[in-house]
């Protein structure tokens, strides 16, 4: 979700009407935004729709709001002049970064507010819509410093040294990848190829090295810049065209003139940008039914016009035209949502559906509830802890070897939360270790999910509910835990036996496996003093852990 900074004054100027920050708070919702902060005239806007890059600039927001405020409705009028500028695409880039689309924009009058929007839009389009420059990289070049035609061509890593943005010396492409901060950040997008993409003019001047960095000489836009050359590169030409349309439409909002150019791809050529509207048909009946409202034809057309569509009714359908800076219209619901937004969500009458259904908890949930109530009845305090833990807590402190079936996170935020626990008892020990200064006796339990690798499962992991309880006091003994276990199991109607075993977490001779129908389903015992020491506990602990879900099935 892109976050923008816009100036309220700048927006007012573009709208042709003053809007206050307070008004914007409500208005911005119609442009799928939400105000996240205000600092003087600067408003921070969270743009929620990741598929509407046309709304990621003051220009785009102004275009949308003019419709909502009925200052200007229907398709925006963006005219394109033809130029004879040509761009030649090198077939050698087919496997590297095959496509570029371009435009020339003239007659810019750039102030600080405009400049910041150019930079911001270019950045957000490449970051979010362009998936961190992989799908779309945008370069904006000072047109007065280059001489067409322009060549999008392959360069060897050690050829064509140029001065990259904010540097003072010429570097070769391979030096840029290793030395320039942007080179380091984005080199994975070109590395592994013998050649890298480069945009040069007819005199051999480097414009930009997509998708890495512009040249310091040509690729720096300032408030002095009058005319620009826009460069968009990537893999999918339709995506690139949409991105180009988003950018030139924003320039058009500022009164600049857009010129199309001819791009020569291997074997064919195309004139871009092309802002010919696209059409989409929506069934009137579907709209009425889905919104649950009987809107007449005139309402439908007027509402769509507010959302910058041209629309007309054609029999049972509404045919809408929309500007091709949008590529998010894939389904009738995409148009329908715009209709609903224009109508106003809060103007609709909410209608609780009259559907007769029977509510039900999962049988397991009902059983777990009873199990928890039994533990509460036995005087145990319920706790809830995190599923994520660490090897240190789960195994080292418990004095056991790390098993092979541990589910482990590759990119944990901290080593403390890097492993999914296979059992709950270590979490109980951690809890007790945090409460050594509080009143004893402390008796606690938890019923939660734990996880271990199990190849037979669809997700390779078995996650199942377990029960663990622990009594910690100066007089805690095996007998105390056994009494609670007996009472719990009897009330669950589960017959079991306890079979003596050896386990490094427990005192020798005071630990047993809980066996149900011949299968070990849990463990009971007095925690070994060595383990108590590892947890910083001075009071003995008698504890039980059960694979509860298996027992309740």
């Amino acid at each position, binding site marked *: 979700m892109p976050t923008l900074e816009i100036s309220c004054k700048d927006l007012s100027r573009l709208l042709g009407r003053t809007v206050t920050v307070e008004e914007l708070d409500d208005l911005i919702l119609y442009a799928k935004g939400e105000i996240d902060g205000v600092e003087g005239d600067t408003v921070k806007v969270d743009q929620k729709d990741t598929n509407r890059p046309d709304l990621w600039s003051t220009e785009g927001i102004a275009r949308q709001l003019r419709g909502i405020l009925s200052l200007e409705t229907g398709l925006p009028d963006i005219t394109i002049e033809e130029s004879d500028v040509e761009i030649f695409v090198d077939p050698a880039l087919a496997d590297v970064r095959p496509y570029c689309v371009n435009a020339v924009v003239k007659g810019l009058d750039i102030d600080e507010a405009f400049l910041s929007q150019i930079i911001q839009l270019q950045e957000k389009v490449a970051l979010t819509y362009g998936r961190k420059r992989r799908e779309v990289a945008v370069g904006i070049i000072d047109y007065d410093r280059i001489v067409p035609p322009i060549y999008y061509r392959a360069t060897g890593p050690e050829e064509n040294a140029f001065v990259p943005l904010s540097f003072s010396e010429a570097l070769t492409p391979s030096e840029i990848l290793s030395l320039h901060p942007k080179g380091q950040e984005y080199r994975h997008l070109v590395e592994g190829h013998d050649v890298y993409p480069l945009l040069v003019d007819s005199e051999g001047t480097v414009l930009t090295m997509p998708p890495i960095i512009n040249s310091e000489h040509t690729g720096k836009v300032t408030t002095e810049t009058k005319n620009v050359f826009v460069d968009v590169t990537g893999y999918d030409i339709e995506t690139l065209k949409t991105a180009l349309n988003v950018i030139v439409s924003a320039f058009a909002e500022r009164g600049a003139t857009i010129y199309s150019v001819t791009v020569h791809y291997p074997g064919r050529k195309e004139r871009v940008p092309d802002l010919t509207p696209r059409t989409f048909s929506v069934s009137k009946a579907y709209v009425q039914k889905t919104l649950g409202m009987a809107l007449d034809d005139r309402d439908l057309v007027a509402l769509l016009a507010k959302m910058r569509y041209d629309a007309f009714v054609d029999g049972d359908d509404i045919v809408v035209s929309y500007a091709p800076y949008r590529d998010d219209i894939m389904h009738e619901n995409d148009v329908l949502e715009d209709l609903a937004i224009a109508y106003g969500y809060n103007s609709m009458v909410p209608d609780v559906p009259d559907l007769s259904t029977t509510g039900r908890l*999962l049988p397991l949930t009902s059983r777990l509830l009873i199990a928890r109530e039994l533990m509460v009845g036995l005087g145990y305090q319920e706790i809830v802890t995190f599923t994520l833990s660490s090897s240190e807590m789960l195994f080292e402190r418990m004095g056991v070897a790390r098993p092979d079936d541990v589910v482990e996170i590759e990119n944990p935020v901290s080593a403390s939360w890097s492993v*999914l626990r296979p059992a709950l008892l270590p979490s109980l020990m951690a809890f007790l270790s945090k409460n050594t200064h509080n009143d004893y006796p402390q008796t606690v339990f938890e019923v939660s999910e734990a996880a271990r690798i199990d190849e037979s499962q669809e997700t390779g992991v078995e996650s199942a509910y377990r029960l663990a309880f622990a009594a910690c006091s100066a007089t805690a003994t095996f007998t105390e835990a056994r009494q609670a276990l007996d009472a719990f199991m009897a009330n669950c109607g589960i017959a079991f036996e306890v079979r003596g075993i050896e386990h490094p977490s427990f005192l020798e001779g005071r630990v047993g496996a809980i066996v149900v129908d011949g299968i070990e389903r849990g463990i009971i015992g007095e925690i070994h003093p060595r383990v108590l020491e590892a947890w910083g506990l001075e009071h003995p602990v008698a504890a039980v852990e059960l694979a509860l879900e298996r027992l309740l099935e």
Partner: protein
Amino acid sequence: MNNGTVNALTNEEKKVLLLLLSSETGAASPEALASGDMVAVAIHRASLGLASRGFITIEESVKTTLRITNEGEELRSVIPERAVAEAIRATGGTSAYLDELAIDKRLSGIALGWLKKRQWAEMEKEGGRMRVTLTEPAIEALGRPSPLQDALERIATEVVMLEEVDASIVSDLKSRKAIEMRTERTRTLVLTDAARAVDPASIIIREEVTQLTPDLVRNGRWKDVQFKRFDVSVPVKPLYPGKKQPYLAFLDSLKAQFVALGFQEMRGPLIETEFWNFDALFQPQNHPARDWTDTYRLISPKQGRLPDDGTVEAVKRSHESSWKYVWDPEKARNLMPRAHGTCLSARQLHAGVSLPGKYFSIARCFRPDVLDRTHLIEFNQIEGIICDESLTFRNLLGVLKQFAEEIAGARQVRFYPDYYPFTEPSVQMSAKHPDLGWVEFGGAGIFRSELTRPLGVEEPVIAWGLGVDRLAMFKLGIDDIRYLFSDDITWLRREVMM
């Protein structure tokens, strides 16, 4: 004061009352009443009980007695200045050289100071010798016994109260460190007029019992014994009951509410394939939300299994035709701790839904956040779906409003446009909570048909998710979200469950 009142007294109280009634004055100190039968502590305890019931008053007095010191004992036999004066008189005159008197040097040294201070003598140096000449008051004083010695004599041999001795003499003796003062508080138990009228014969001392035992009940002896009175206002040691964890108790109550609203519970695995977490929800594989920094990945295990080929193929087609990229089944097989509860809804759609059908889940979810007072590393999401051919967008608004009223107790709601990759139209709701004001309460939308069709559902599906953590925090009275997973047993013990 009747017999009933008297016989409601404890045995200790009765015994003290009897002792006082048998004394001549009807008053005595606790010490005076103490005996082998009743130690001072018992008398003290009984006297408090008697006083609280109006049988006695306890009068407290402060008494200061004088004690003679070692220096005082010396002074009692010899007063230095008097010894010197008497030695001068023994020479026959009223004046003498100090060195011609038969007086110990140390004593005469002390005496000179006092002779001067009391103006008993005048001192002159004559050719290196000290001449001492007695004054009239000294000569007169010698004719009487020494009042200092009289006082010391009394202090040494009997108990002398501070006020019995002339203040100037006390001051003199104190400056000579001859006496010490000792202050004692004394209590006197004094029968009230009402108590004086009690007939000692009416006071019956019966066996007194602390614990009512089964034996006492069984053999009827409870009728003959007296039960010791307890001070019921005294605090006792705390008792901690077994309790549900407050946050889980809150979630339990929500589950009950959803069941009451006709929802069936769903469940899914903690570890999910990306297929169910993202792909089945129409989130393209190159979507920024699927980025490394926003989701967890696993070292082990790495990959799970995809569902049936038909479903996989349908999801693949849906992605490729809408998002225009090559869908990779290998990426879809990658495993991750589930990042939201919506994957449970996708699984439910695939498993099959009733029409009409309502489903909900409360699912533990994982996102790579740092644990602090506003972020948890794990959290619970409440999500659900409603499926029926008849559903409309206004139904969706109706359902959300119903949740806000039932769950948050809200009277007002506001809807905002929103964006989720899997719903269109999408909506966000704020609810006006009676105490918290406007709270962002939930998000919802109609599932995109690009999502539902590949999973085998043609009918409209409303999907919703509610943020209840703020409500839970309010209910639990906390402003630090970590308390939802509290590791503080004292807080858990104190948390009110109602």
